[in-house]
């Protein structure tokens, strides 16, 4: 498999979505290269989450195309996209509350191992599921919480578990919707330490409000304003761009 920079991992072409008169995505085009952390920023209501939803398949675009590894996936349902290696995590924690942390991760592992029409063997004693799950939990620093139910985990730990599930599902592109939302300083620093080594391994499309995080992690940044793309560039270019300053930073306060 040769990945030349010319073939982007993810390519969004002229993506448009409107809800009645409200335009959530306006001719949006950008690309994520293999292995890069690509940040999607913009003021509240810029359409970042809508864009993520259209890429993951949960929202049907009004027009435009989404290509993943050169393949048109605009009409593929969510679970098919996930099977191709396009996984997302959620802004609002989206876990399986009745299950333990380990169950949650094991379910993400299970999704990678072909169909689940297996009715006999106990899933909780299946080493093929539990060993990789334990490994990911160790890597993410949640190993000692493995047997706790999701409802017994602190908020920051739930966010970590969210990332653990995304990693366990071996994505080639990870859509991270505000992974640090609601986290304290130290938690969010720990999360950054977890994300940084992924650079070069998997592509990440990161929606994040915290500019320090964006500038510390991202290879490239795309700026959205009112559903449309203002610019794509390196963190430095974006920071120095007067239009971004006006549109984005101006709106903030």
């Amino acid at each position: 498999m040769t990945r030349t920079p010319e073939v982007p991992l993810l390519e969004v072409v002229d993506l448009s979505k409107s809800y009645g008169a409200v335009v959530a995505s306006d001719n949006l085009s950008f690309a994520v290269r293999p292995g890069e952390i690509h940040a999607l920023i913009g003021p509240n209501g810029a359409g970042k989450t809508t864009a993520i939803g259209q890429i993951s398949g949960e929202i049907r675009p009004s027009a435009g195309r989404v290509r993943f590894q050169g393949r048109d996936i605009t009409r593929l349902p969510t679970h098919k996209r996930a099977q191709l290696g396009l996984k997302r995590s959620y802004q609002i924690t989206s876990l399986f509350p009745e299950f333990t942390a380990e169950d949650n991760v094991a379910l993400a592992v299970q999704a990678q191992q072909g169909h689940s029409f297996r009715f006999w063997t106990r899933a909780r004693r299946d080493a093929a599921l539990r060993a990789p799950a334990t490994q990911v939990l160790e890597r993410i620093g949640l190993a000692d919480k493995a047997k706790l139910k999701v409802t017994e985990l602190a908020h920051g730990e739930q966010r970590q578990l969210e990332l653990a599930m995304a990693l366990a599902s071996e994505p080639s592109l990870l859509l991270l919707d505000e992974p640090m939302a609601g986290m304290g300083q130290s938690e969010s620093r720990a999360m950054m330490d977890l994300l940084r080594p992924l650079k070069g391994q998997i592509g990440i499309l990161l929606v994040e409000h915290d500019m320090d995080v964006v500038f510390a992690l991202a290879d490239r940044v795309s700026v959205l304003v009112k559903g449309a793309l203002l610019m794509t560039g390196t963190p430095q270019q974006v920071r120095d761009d007067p239009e971004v300053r006006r549109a984005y930073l101006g709106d903030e306060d």
Partner: protein
Amino acid sequence: MEGRLTRRAVVHGLALIILVVLPPLADAAGEPFLTTVASRILIYAIAAVSLDVILGYGGMVSFGHAAFFGIGAYTVGILMHHAFDGTVIPFLPWDWTGSVSAFVQFPLAILVSGLFALVIGALSLRTQGVYFIMITLAFAQMLYYFMISLPTYGGEDGLNLWERSSLPPLDLYDEWQFYYLTLVLLLLFLALMQRLVNSRFGMVIRGCKQNEARMKALGFATYRYKLAAFTIAGMGAGLAGALAANHTEFVGPDMMHWTRSGEIMIMVILGGMGTLYGPVLGAATLLLMEEVLQQITEHWMVVLGPFLVFVVLFARRGVYGWLVGKATDDD
């Protein structure tokens, strides 16, 4: 957990002992009809457990589960009817005059209910929430009215069976033998479902109950798994229906009426949704209450209502949860 005498193990052990010694005990007490009542409880327990697999584990609130119960019963009834008339079953591509053998009737009852569940599920599972409840209810009522308008099989009056299924070397007319057959089938079904809900498949349907959108995002084709679970549940209800037809020696459209679906659902909720053994307790609780209270007043539902409210409010895992305490991995 193994080897330790937990509260759960004690409850299960006691329940099993009571179930095994019940017929001789009933006879010794001079109340042999109790065995018949107990058989009825076990039959409904099978139906309730099957509903709980999709309701309690899969989060699919099917309000038409009695349809599959009725189809199982009618399969037995119709095969029996033709076997005694010597007439050919209509709409079959070949001439077949039915059968009185349980070896034919029971598997066929399970198969036919499964097929109906597959079709009804395939359509219903495209909807969610209240719509799913309503559409499953609508399908069940459709089948109910269909059987009412079918005079060949008794219409509104139903079919009286000439005899019970033949299952050599057993004699199903013997209440003891019938009881123990039903008990063995229930235990077998419970064992199978215990494997199922703890398997990879089980984890998928339990995941769907908790967060289906996330299951899809993980890459699971949730519709297929839910449909498979729905079909399996329909098959379980079909088996219960086949037993019920033998138990009452009668099949009628009332077996599919929505109130019957409601009763099965009440058994699940009373006993403990999302616990495998709870629905068995639920079936026992509801049917025993009916049996006892009916002798006092015909308005026995007046007592059932508040009791149900009490259970829902104060015992989230039903009578079962109240007996065994905290949830464990295996429930």
